[in-house]
């Protein structure tokens, strides 16, 4: 199963590297959103610093929608989704592979946006360990929930508009937890960062298990 998950993840990441959609479209989109936030608040540098964690994670979630949508679009484009069903690969491996590929893309996005936040919003990192752990756990949570909901809407003609409507409310706990953890890591609020990290890890674990168990049924319906 791990071999198959690795196969799926490697395929998805290779496609993304080749197509450069992430680099040429998703990253510029995310940077643009971040810059617009900076323009909107630039008269108040203190407010920028205070709200930087929340703005960062809102931007990550918006960009994640594009990455998740694309992950399923490449399978649907020329019938590869049917081939995946016919391949005999365990749906759990497909779920794990796709979630892993999305998580890797989100981590790369977080690194690039993190640099942008430090430069644009003038924040200073106080707790690197917390920052890294929260970033990884949040990426895992968004990727697992995103893969699950991406498969849920994959077969629908309105999937591009339905995915945000369904997914954003679901990942609200990730937004809250990651924002609190980053506030602690940036030293802009007295949040219990490590406790919020627990919430992020729990969210990722729950959606990881739930997604793995239900993914087969979702693929059948897609």
């Amino acid at each position, binding site marked *: 199963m791990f071999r*198959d998950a690795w196969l799926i993840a490697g395929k998805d990441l290779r496609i993304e590297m080749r197509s450069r959609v992430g680099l040429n479209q998703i990253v510029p989109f995310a940077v643009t959103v971040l810059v617009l936030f900076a323009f909107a608040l630039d008269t108040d540098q203190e407010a920028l610093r205070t709200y930087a964690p929340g703005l960062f994670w809102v931007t990550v979630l918006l960009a994640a929608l594009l990455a998740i949508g694309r992950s399923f679009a490449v399978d649907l484009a*020329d019938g*590869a989704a049917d081939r995946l069903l*016919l391949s005999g690969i365990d749906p759990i491996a497909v779920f794990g592979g796709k979630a892993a590929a999305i998580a890797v893309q989100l981590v790369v996005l977080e690194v690039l946006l993190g640099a942008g936040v430090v430069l644009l919003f003038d924040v200073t990192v106080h707790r690197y360990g917390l920052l890294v752990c929260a970033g990884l756990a949040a990426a895992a949570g968004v990727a697992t929930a995103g893969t699950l909901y991406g498969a849920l809407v994959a077969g629908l003609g309105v999937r591009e508009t339905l995915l945000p409507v369904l997914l954003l409310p679901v990942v609200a706990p990730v937004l809250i937890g990651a924002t609190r953890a980053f506030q602690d890591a940036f030293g802009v609020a007295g949040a219990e960062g490590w406790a919020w990290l627990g919430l992020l890890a729990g969210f990722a674990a729950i959606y990881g298990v739930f997604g793995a168990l239900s993914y087969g049924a979702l693929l059948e319906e897609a």
Partner: protein
Amino acid sequence: MESAVRLRAAVTLLGRFPALAGVNLDITPGEIVLLKGPNGAGKTTLLRLCAGLCTLSTGQGWVLGHDLSSERRMVRRRVALLGHRTGLYDDLTVTENVAFWARAAGAGRQDVDEALERLSLTGRLADTRVGRLSAGQRRRASIASLVVRRPELWLLDEPHAGLDQQTRDTVDTLVRGAAAAGATVVLATHELERIAVLEPRVVSVVGGMVRSDDPTDSQGPNASSDAEDDRRVS
């Protein structure tokens, strides 16, 4: 002998529309079967049902001994379906696509090389991204990605579409070779003259039902059934 395909009163609904409206069909292992009939007759749905991609709404069905209602995953592992779409990734090269599907099926690098060789997808073509290929080349790459799976049941929907003469001959050779190796081949095509050399058993599909299952049937692909099909749809 266990049937390769056995359908009894098989009904498949696409929404409310009965794409298959009570099909009875037996196909023995090693047979080459031609499904003929007008557009919209249910040939593609029948192939997808046999592949385990469509569900049985009512009736019963077995493919390679597996129940189509409860063992579709087992069916899927043992069949190959060449549909209207290629099932390939535009941003991967031909070799990467074929290797991906080969690894998914547990096949090795040697199987990939053999499949590429058989479909004349060697040299620069093998390292070209699928998105940059012509329609015919994409079709060949799609067939190569099925060959590596060594399926026991081939389900081919218009296998010659978009191919040049040389590649059509290659496909015919593949079909003969698969049948000679004991695999069953079910294909749907309008190119009856071309398929005749393979000496298939001809099964007419009209209005979602098998209307004739006669080796001597020489009825044309559109004979008298289009109007009937139109009435059914309306």
